[in-house]
C-alpha cells in the first residue's frame, strides 16, 4: 500500500504547527488512512457524483440458493418434470445431468408488478413491489468458496478486499461510535471462508468488517476485559484510561500524528463500549416490531434478531452491514446447499422459513421508518442450482444462472433485468455478473466504479476488476 502522499503529509504538518495536533489527528483517524489516496491533493475525498444511497445491507444466502424454487418461474420446467434433457454439464459436483425436476413448490404472481414467487417465501412475496431483480446472474465458478469470494469481493481467489471494505474505503464513517463495516454471521457458524468473508484484503485494517456476535460475552473481540480478570473494575478502567491519556499526551512528537491518533483511538474505543451494547439491547423495540421480524418463533427468531440488529446498526450510522444466512462450517446442512432435497420438510424449506419473515420484516421496517430511501438492501448467494435433479429430490450447483435482488437506495421496486433460458439452466438475456451489481451499488453510493481504485503490487485494483457496468434499467 502507499504511504500518504507528500502533499498530504505537508498539509497535515502545517495544520499541526498552526493549530496544535489534536484536531488533525482525530480527523485523520475518523477519515481512515488510505482514503485520501484517491483524492487529488488539496481536496477532501469527495464522491464522484451525487449519491442516491448512503448505507448498505448485504444479505448473503450461503450455499447457493435455488432460483428454481424461489423466484425464477419456468412453465416448461413445471410441465416437463421427470423428462431427460441433454444438458452440457459444466459445473456442479456430478458429471451428468439427472432428469428435469419440477419445483415441488406452488408458483403464484404477486404485487402490482406480478412477480412470480413460490409459496416457499410467502413473506418476501408480499414485498416484490419494493424489489429490483437480476434474473440472469452468472458466476464464473460452481464451487462454494470461490463463488462466495466472487460475490463478496469480485475475485475467485482469496486476498481481495470485500465490497464492505471498499465502501468503507470510499465513503468513510457516518458515526464515531461504531465500526464502519459490520458483519453478522449466522448464529449457527461462520461462512465457507471464515472471517475472510469480510476481509479488507490489502486495504488498511480499519476497513475490515468487524464481526458482531450478539450472543457472546464480547460481541466484538476484546470490547470489554474478561469478566474473570482481576484487572477489570469500573474505577480502575476509568482511572487507567485517564492516566494513559495523560502519559501519552506528555510524550507527543511534532510531525508524528500517529501518537495523537493513538490517544484518540482509546476515546473512540470507549464510545464503542457504550454504543455496541446499546445497539444490541432490543428492550426498547415494541412487540409489534419484534413480531414483524419473527421473534417468538424458534424457527425465525435467530435470523430475525440479526435482521433487527442490522436495522439498528444502519439507524446508528454503520455504513455497511453484511448479514449471513447459513453457515459453511456446520457441515453439509444448515445452509442453502440443498443437493439432497428441496422438497417440503427439507433443509431448503428450513432455510426459507429461517430467512423469509425476518428479511421481509427488515424491508418493511426500513420502509416504514423512511430508512429504505437511502439504504440499499442486497440479497445474494454464490450461485444457483440446476433445473435437473441430483439424487431424486435435490439440485446440484449451477453457476450458469441465478437470481439476486436489491431494494431501496435508488433502486426501482417491482423491476427485473435479465432472463434465463426455458428451464433456468443458463442465463439467456441481459446477463449480469457481480461486477455489474457492484458497479451499480457504487454508482448509487456516489462513486464511479472505474475511478475508485487502490494501488497494490503494481496494479491499480478496483472492486470491479476490469469489468462492470451500471444496470440503469433497475434504477428509479
Amino acid at each position, binding site marked *: 500500500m502507499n504511504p500518504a502522499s507528500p502533499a498530504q*503529509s505537508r498539509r497535515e504538518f502545517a495544520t499541526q504547527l498552526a493549530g496544535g495536533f489534536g484536531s488533525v489527528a482525530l480527523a485523520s483517524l475518523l477519515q481512515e488512512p488510505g482514503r485520501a489516496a484517491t483524492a487529488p491533493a488539496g481536496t477532501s475525498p469527495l464522491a464522484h457524483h451525487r449519491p442516491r444511497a448512503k448505507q448498505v445491507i448485504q444479505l448473503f444466502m450461503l450455499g447457493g440458493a435455488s432460483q428454481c424454487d424461489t423466484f425464477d418461474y419456468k412453465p416448461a420446467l413445471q410441465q416437463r418434470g421427470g423428462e431427460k434433457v441433454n444438458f452440457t454439464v459444466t*459445473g456442479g459436483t456430478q458429471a451428468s445431468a439427472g432428469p428435469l425436476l419440477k419445483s415441488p413448490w406452488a408458483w403464484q404472481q404477486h404485487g402490482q408488478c406480478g412477480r412470480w414467487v413460490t409459496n416457499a417465501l410467502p413473506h418476501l412475496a408480499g414485498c416484490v413491489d419494493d424489489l429490483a431483480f437480476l434474473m440472469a446472474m452468472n458466476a464464473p465458478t460452481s464451487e462454494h468458496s470461490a463463488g462466495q*469470494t466472487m460475490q463478496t469481493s469480485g475475485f475467485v481467489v482469496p*486476498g481481495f478486499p470485500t465490497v464492505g471494505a471498499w465502501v468503507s474505503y470510499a465513503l468513510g464513517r457516518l458515526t464515531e461510535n461504531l465500526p464502519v463495516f459490520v458483519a453478522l454471521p449466522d448464529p449457527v457458524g461462520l461462512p465457507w471462508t471464515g472471517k475472510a468473508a469480510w476481509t479488507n*484484503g490489502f486495504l488498511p485494517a480499519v476497513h475490515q468488517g468487524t464481526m458482531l456476535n450478539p450472543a457472546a460475552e464480547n460481541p466484538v473481540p476484546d*470490547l470489554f476485559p474478561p469478566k474473570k480478570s*482481576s484487572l477489570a473494575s469500573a474505577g480502575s478502567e476509568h482511572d487507567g484510561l485517564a492516566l494513559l491519556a495523560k502519559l501519552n499526551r506528555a510524550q507527543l512528537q511534532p510531525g508524528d500524528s500517529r501518537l495523537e491518533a493513538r490517544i484518540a*483511538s482509546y476515546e473512540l474505543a470507549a464510545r464503542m463500549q457504550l454504543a455496541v451494547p446499546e445497539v444490541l439491547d432490543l428492550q426498547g423495540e415494541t412487540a409489534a416490531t419484534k413480531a414483524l421480524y419473527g421473534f417468538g418463533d424458534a424457527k425465525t427468531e435467530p435470523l430475525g434478531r440479526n435482521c433487527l440488529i442490522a436495522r439498528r446498526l444502519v439507524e446508528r450510522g454503520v455504513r455497511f452491514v453484511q448479514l449471513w444466512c447459513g453457515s459453511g462450517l456446520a457441515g453439509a446442512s444448515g445452509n442453502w446447499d440443498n443437493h439432497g432435497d428441496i422438497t417440503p420438510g427439507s433443509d431448503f424449506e428450513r432455510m426459507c422459513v429461517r430467512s423469509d419473515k425476518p428479511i421481509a420484516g427488515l424491508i418493511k421496517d426500513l420502509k416504514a421508518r423512511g430508512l429504505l430511501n437511502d439504504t440499499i438492501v442486497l440479497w445474494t448467494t454464490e450461485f444457483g442450482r440446476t433445473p435437473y435433479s441430483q439424487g431424486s429430490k435435490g439440485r446440484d450447483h449451477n453457476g450458469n444462472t441465478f437470481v439476486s435482488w436489491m431494494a431501496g437506495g435508488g433502486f426501482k421496486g417491482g423491476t427485473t433485468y435479465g432472463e434465463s433460458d426455458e428451464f433456468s439452466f443458463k442465463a439467456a438475456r441481459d446477463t449480469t455478473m457481480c461486477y455489474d451489481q457492484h458497479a451499480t451499488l457504487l454508482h448509487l453510493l456516489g462513486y464511479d466504479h472505474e475511478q475508485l481504485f487502490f494501488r497494490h503490487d503494481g496494479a491499480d485494483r478496483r472492486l470491479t476488476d476490469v469489468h462492470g457496468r451500471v444496470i440503469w434499467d433497475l434504477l428509479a
Partner: protein
Amino acid sequence: MKLLATVLSLAALAVPAEAASAKPSSTDWWSLKPLVRPAVPPIGNQQSATGNPIDAFILAKLREQKLTPAPSADRGTLIRRLTFDLHGLPPSPEEVDQFEQDAAPQAYERLVERLLASPRYGERWARHWLDVVHYGESNGFGMDRPRLQAWPYRDYVIAALNADKPYARFVHEQLAADAMFPEDASLVPALGFAAAGPFNQSALVEQVDGTDCKRMALNLDRDDMVASTASTFLSLTVHCARCHEHKFDPISQQDYYRLQAVFAGVGRAERTFDADPQVRVRRTGLRGLIADLEKNPDAHPPTAAERGSLATAQRAWEKSLAAQAANWTPLSIEQVTSTNSTTTFTKLDDGSWLATGTAADKDVYTVRARVTLPAITALRLEVLPDDRLPARGPGRQDNGNLHLSEIRVSLAGTNVTEKPKPIALRNASADFNQAGWSIERALDGKPETAWGIHPQVGKPHHAVFELAQPSAVTNGVTLIVQLDQLHGQRHLIGRFRLSATDKPQPVRAPTLPVELLAKLARPDAERTEAERKQLFDLHRLVYLREQLAQLPAEQRVWAIAADFAPLRNYKPTKEPPPIAVLHRGDIKQPLATVGPGALAVVGTLPAEFALPNAQDEAARRAALARWITAPENMLTWRSIVNRVWHWHFGRGLVDTPNDFGRMGSLPTHPELLDWLAVEFRDSGGSLKQLHKLIVSSATYRQKSSIQSSVSSVQTGRSPAPASLTEHWKLNTEYFQRAAATDASNAYLWRMNRPRLDAEAFRDALLAASGKLDLTMGGPSAMQFKFDDPNKEVAPRVDYAAFDPDNPASYRRSVYRFLFRNLNDPLLEALDAVDPSLSTPIRNSTITPLQALSLWNNRFVLRQCEHLAARVEREATGLEAQITRAFRLLCTRAPSREEMALLTEHAHQHGLAHACRVMVNLNDFLFVN
C-alpha cells in the same frame, strides 16, 4: 465462451496518463539497466564519522534538498532500535546498562555482532521473508484445512538466515534444492517456498479432471507459484501477463507462460524426506528392491548370507501366523434387507450375498443370522469382487469403492416384543485401508467417517471386529448385523459374506491373501516345490517391508513435488504437461505451446533455457534458479538489498518492494541502491554483512525526532554528545523546513519511528512478563482452542477460549500456527498479515479496535499480571518495581512525573493495573 474469458482477466490495470505514454516494449527503465558499481559521492569535510559509504550517498541527496542529517540517537535509543530491528524483541535492562556503560570505541559494533550472532535474529528476519512468500499453515479458500507439515519450511528459513547462507544459495535451495543439491535431503524443506500460498482444495482435490473448474484452478495454482517467484526474487509483477501482454512492463504473455512451464510438473503436497543420509540410502535401496521383486521375484536372487537370515525369519514368521490364524465359520444368514426398496439381495453359492437393483445414495443393510458356534470371539466381514459390479466391485460406486460408516451388532430378542440387545465391538482390523478411511472409522460412532478400500478395487478385502464380551453370543442365538453406509454417492457394499470365529482373542485380520493362508496352514514337508518358492518369495517381501517399516519415520514437509501420494482427484503427472499461451487467460482458448524459460526483459541473459532433457521438470526449476541468481540479473540483486533496506528503515529506497516496474515507485537513491546491490553481490551475498553495513551507518543511527528523549534529560542517562547536535539543534524552525521539504522522510534526514508490528508486540510483552519461551522450531504452537469435527470443512478455532497460561502461549510469534481464514484477533488488530497474498510492506494502522485489544485482551491482561509478579520478585519497593517494569517495556526509565503518577495509580488499583497502563504507552508501542 466469451464470458469466462472476461472473468479470467484478473488484472485490474487502470491506466494513469504518464504510464500510458511509456512504451512497454522498451527495456529503457531504471530497474532493467545493467548493474554498474557507482562511485561513492565525495562529501568533502562532511565525511560521516563512520566513514560508511551509505552516509556519503545519503548526505549527497540531503544536500541537494538543503537538508542536514539528525545527530546520533543516544545509546538507550540505539540498543532498543537495534534489538527490535534485529531480534524483534526489547533489550533487557541489564543489556541496556552494559551497553550504556561500555566505554570502548567498538561498543556499538560489538553490540551489532552479538545481535547478529544470536538465533533470535533468524526468527525475526524469517518472519519478514514469510510475509513476502505468503506462508500460511492452512489451505485457505473454503476448505481452510490445516497444513500440519508446513513448519519445516519456516524452520528452514530461520536456520538459513542464522547460518547466513549466501543469498544465491538461499534462492537455489528454495526453487530447486532437490535438483541442485540431491545429495543433501535436509534441504528438501526449502521447497516449501513455492507451495506456501493458498491451495484450492475443493476444486483441485474434489473436482474430476477435465472440468472447467479444475482446469481454471490448476491454471490459477501455477499462477500463484509464478507470481510468488517473480515478486519475491525479481520484484516484478508478472501476473498481469496471464491474460494480456503486460500493459506497463515489457513482459509478454509468452514470457509469463514460459514461467508457468517451469512449474508445470509440480503439485503441492506433503513431501517426504530423510534428513539423515544413511537412512535415506537404506530406504531408497529397500524401496527399489521391493519394487523390483514385486514385479519379478527373481530380479535379485538373495546372497547366501541373506538366504540364511531369511530362512530363520521365515520360520518365525510362519510360527506367528499359525498362532494368529483363526478358523472362520460362515454365519447362517436368514435375511438381508436394505432401507431402499430398489435394492434386493441374492444369495450366492459360496455363502456370500450380492446386492442388485438401483443403488441409492446412502443405505443401511440389515442382516439376520443364526450363530452356530459355541461362543463367538470375533466377526469377519468379507467384501468380494463380482463381474456384475462397477469396476468389479466390491463396492457399488462407479469406481468400485464402498464406505462402511458404522457396523452395529445386536442380539435379537427371543420374541417380537423383546428389544434387540446391542453387542459392543472393538479392535477393528482390515487387510487394507484406503488412505484417510481406515477400519477404526467403522467403529468410531461417527456417521461421517468410514472404512474404504480405494484404490484396491476389483479384489477381495476383509475386516475383523472383536466382540468386547465374547461370552454374550452363544450357539443358537440370532444376530442382527447392521451395515451403515451413509457417506453418499452410492459408496455401498456390492457383495459380502459374514463369518465368525471362536479362537481366543486377540483376533486380527491378516494382511495376506486368503489362498496363501491355506498353503501356509500345511507343514513344509507337504508343500510342493512351487509352493515353497511362492512362500519364500512372499516372505522375502514381507521381511523387506518390515525392514523398511523399522527405519525412522520419514519427515514430511508441505512443498512442491513432482511425485506425491494422490489425494482423490489430485494426482502427480508423470511428465510436465505442455503449457500453452492462453488467449485472454482463457483455458478454452489455447494458442502456441511454450517451453520452460524466463523473462526476455532481462536483456543480459537468454530467456530460453537450453536443457538437455526438456521433460526433466526439476532441471527446469534449477535453470530458473540459476537464471535468477546470475550476476547479470540486475533485478535480483536490486530486489534483495531494497527489501533489507525497507525492513531496517520502514521504507525501501524503492518504496514498492514487490514492484520495480512502471507502476512501482522510482528509487529515491538509485546510486545507493546500485552500490549496495553490487557490493552485496560481489562480496558473496552475505545478508549479515549487509545488515552490519546498514546499521553501522550514521544514517541508521540518527535520532528519530527533534525532542531529546526523556531518559537523557530527566534521568541523567547518556546525554547526547554536544558535538553532534551542533548543526541540528532542537530547532523548530529547521524541523518545520525539513518537514515541509520531505515530510515522509524519503531522504532520511532523521530516523523513522516504527510502531511495533503484531509479532514484535506480542513477543516483547512476553519478554517483559518473563514468560517468553525461547524454544526454537518444530510444529507450530496452536494458540487457540481447536475443534475439528468435520474434515470436509474448516476447523473451529477459538482464540478467546484459549488459556493464556497454556505453555503454547509463551512461544515466539513466528512459531504460532497461522490459519489463513481464522487469524488471531489480537494480532489482526495490529496488522498481522493475511497470507492469501504477498505482503512486502506491513500496514501499520491505529484503530479503535486495536485500542480495545491492547487494553482488554485476555492474553495481554494476563501478561500484565505476570509482569507485576515478576518485578515484585526482582525489585523491592513500589518505585523500584515500577521503574523495572517501565524499563522492561520502554527501555528508558520513567520520568519523575511518570513515576509519581504510576505509583499513585498502583497504590489505588494495584501494580498489575499500572502495568496495564504501561503496556499501552506510546513509548512501548513505538521504537524511536
